[in-house]
């Protein structure tokens, strides 16, 4: 199988990105459903239910009502004028997903999946979480819809994100520490998948990113795509044109695909994903699956993965727990191969510098994850003329990271 099926630029230029995934859940050669036999039937049931619901006017209306009145959408596009001046290049615009209820884009997806769970008659919800944002967003909607909630979280992440752990508990969720493997997001995902295999009759698994087996990459994208749809309309309304370039951070890739998707067929808009380069890609301590990985199979889908020559998934590193993942959503793998998007690494240090610069210039504390996107926006803006527009997804707020940042800088609170 060719890793790059779209070497032919003409073929890539003709792709209609709204047509993906295909009926088998494929984005080109990526995606699919590589799962144990016990999960095939429940996934098929979920795919059928979602296929029905995604075009059901009553379902869509309820989803949109919750996004408006519960989440607080639409989130604004904010012109980071002082930051742009400091950088001295293009204008940096921020899509303020940090202003959503619970403080990140994750709630868009959890509301959607909780509505699917309810429609399917499932009373128990499980989720995995890395930084805790998806766990909080899941615990939140479970409280809102009266569903039992169990969140799996790596023991290392529990240490790094104590505040989000307590937040989930306040919302009535049970947080289960995962001590296997690297004790981070991927292990939490493994454990949640095991729970689902065992309790599939009454349990709905709310996956937090655009990875996993079909239909998750599609479903999670669709629920987050509101970000890009809004942004596209807001750009036309506020600026009379589309941005020159989009950027967003990519761990699993849900906020990024959420922003990118509505613009995929706008070929004049450049798209750049910012992966976690950790201590630098050359150091080996990073989580840049697209920039430094290779096609493989992980967590139910074919995608780019970080692994050794024996196919063992390698431990990743990022200062931000939410990007600390050795795979990536299959649609991003597809966009990389078609050349529609490019993916670059942003180091821990660059992300932290961007965090501080945004805080001081605009009064916004960005999540460490989102700070990778801000760092990339700064790099892009520097190379572009003053009238160019860089739209950056500020996917979450940084309150949860204050302790991590203080500890890293040797400050005890």
């Amino acid at each position: 199988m060719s890793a790059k099926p779209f070497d032919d630029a003409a073929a890539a230029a003709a792709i209609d990105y709204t047509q993906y995934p295909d009926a088998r859940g494929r984005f080109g050669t990526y995606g699919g459903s590589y799962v144990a036999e016990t999960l095939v039937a429940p996934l098929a049931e979920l795919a059928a239910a979602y296929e029905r619901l995604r075009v059901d006017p009553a379902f869509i209306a309820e989803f949109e009502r919750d996004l408006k009145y519960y989440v607080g959408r639409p989130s604004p596009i904010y012109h980071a004028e002082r930051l742009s001046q400091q950088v001295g290049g293009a204008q940096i615009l921020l899509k303020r997903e940090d202003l959503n209820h619970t403080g990140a884009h994750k709630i868009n997806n959890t509301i959607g999946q909780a509505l699917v769970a309810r429609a399917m008659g499932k009373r128990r919800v499980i989720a995995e979480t890395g930084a805790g944002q998806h766990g909080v967003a899941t615990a939140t909607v479970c409280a809102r819809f009266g569903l039992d909630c169990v969140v799996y979280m790596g023991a290392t992440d529990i240490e790094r994100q104590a505040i989000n752990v307590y937040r989930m508990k306040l919302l009535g969720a049970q947080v289960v520490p995962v001590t296997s493997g690297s004790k981070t997001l991927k292990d939490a995902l493994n454990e949640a998948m095991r729970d689902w295999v065992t309790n599939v009759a009454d349990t709905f698994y709310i996956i937090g990113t655009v990875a996993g087996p079909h239909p998750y990459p599609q479903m999670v994208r669709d629920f987050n795509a509101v970000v890009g749809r809004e942004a596209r309309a807001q750009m036309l309304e506020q600026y009379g044109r589309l941005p020159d370039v989009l950027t967003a951070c990519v761990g699993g890739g849900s906020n990024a695909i959420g922003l990118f998707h509505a613009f995929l067929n706008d070929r004049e808009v450049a798209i750049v994903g910012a992966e976690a380069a950790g201590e630098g890609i050359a150091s080996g301590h990073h989580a840049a699956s697209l920039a430094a990985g290779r096609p493989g199979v992980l967590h139910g889908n074919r995608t780019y993965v970080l692994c050794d020559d024996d196919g063992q998934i390698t431990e990743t590193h990022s200062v931000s727990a939410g990007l600390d993942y050795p795979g990536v959503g299959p649609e991003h793998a597809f966009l990389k191969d078609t050349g529609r998007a490019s993916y670059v690494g942003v180091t821990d240090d660059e992300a932290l510098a961007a965090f501080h610069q945004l805080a001081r210039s605009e009064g916004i504390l960005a999540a460490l994850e989102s700070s990778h996107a801000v760092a990339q926006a700064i790099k892009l803006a520097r190379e572009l003329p003053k009238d160019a527009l860089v739209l950056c997804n500020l996917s979450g707020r940084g309150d949860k990271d204050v302790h991590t940042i203080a500890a890293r800088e040797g400050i005890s609170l």
Partner: protein
Amino acid sequence: MSRIDIRFSELRNTGRTGLIPFITAGDPLPDATVALMHALVEAGADLIELGVPFSDPMADGPVIQHASERALAKGVGLAQILGWVRDFRARDAATPVVLMGYMNPVEIHGAARFAQEAAAAGVDGVLLVDCPVEEIDAAAPLRAAGLDQIFLAAPTTTDARLVRICAAAQGFLYYVSFAGVTGAARLSLDDVRARVAAIRQQASTPVAVGFGVRDAASAAAIGAFADAVVIGSALVERLAGAASEEELRTRALGFLAPIRAALDTRGHGR
């Protein structure tokens, strides 16, 4: 006829139920893996399932996950495992060996290269846990190299899919006796019996039953209607921590001998 087919035909002709122990390759003592495989045969194994350790074994329970982690920590890899099979084959040309593992190591190794090397080493079949029949194209090189592709069926498998799985199955069909990960302890015998009977209507291959078989009693109960029983987690748990080749052999014999005896004295009640 593959080595697996020959073995099941021998079992059928002698009216015996097959015993299929699963071990994680390289656990607990990498250098004793070949000796352990011979000990399993000595203890009555008709076929050996050799688990290829993977860092992210989503379908396995804690016992086998920990065995995988231990083996990986000792640097066990695919090339080494194929070497062990080759060494095993030097003294045992009859006992089929099935590799059980996940897609990514095979993909990264290169499916065609893996298939050729595995067949050359004396591997007879491959069970890729995360490769359901819908994704069978990904495993085409295995068949091309003459390896049997073993498929799983589960309580959640629909009738329509069962038809497809039975049509694709080679060697034997592995029925997972309940919806859960390996090593969980739930088993409703009546459900399993009814389900295996239904599978028999469809399948041209023998049916092995696993997931939740722990001891002589459960093995004998399952063996009354299955062509073979698979014992994994309980055996891996028993072998864990053994400090020498001899201790491994003693533990394997001690654990499997009563199961073998129970399967054999029960007679073939089908």
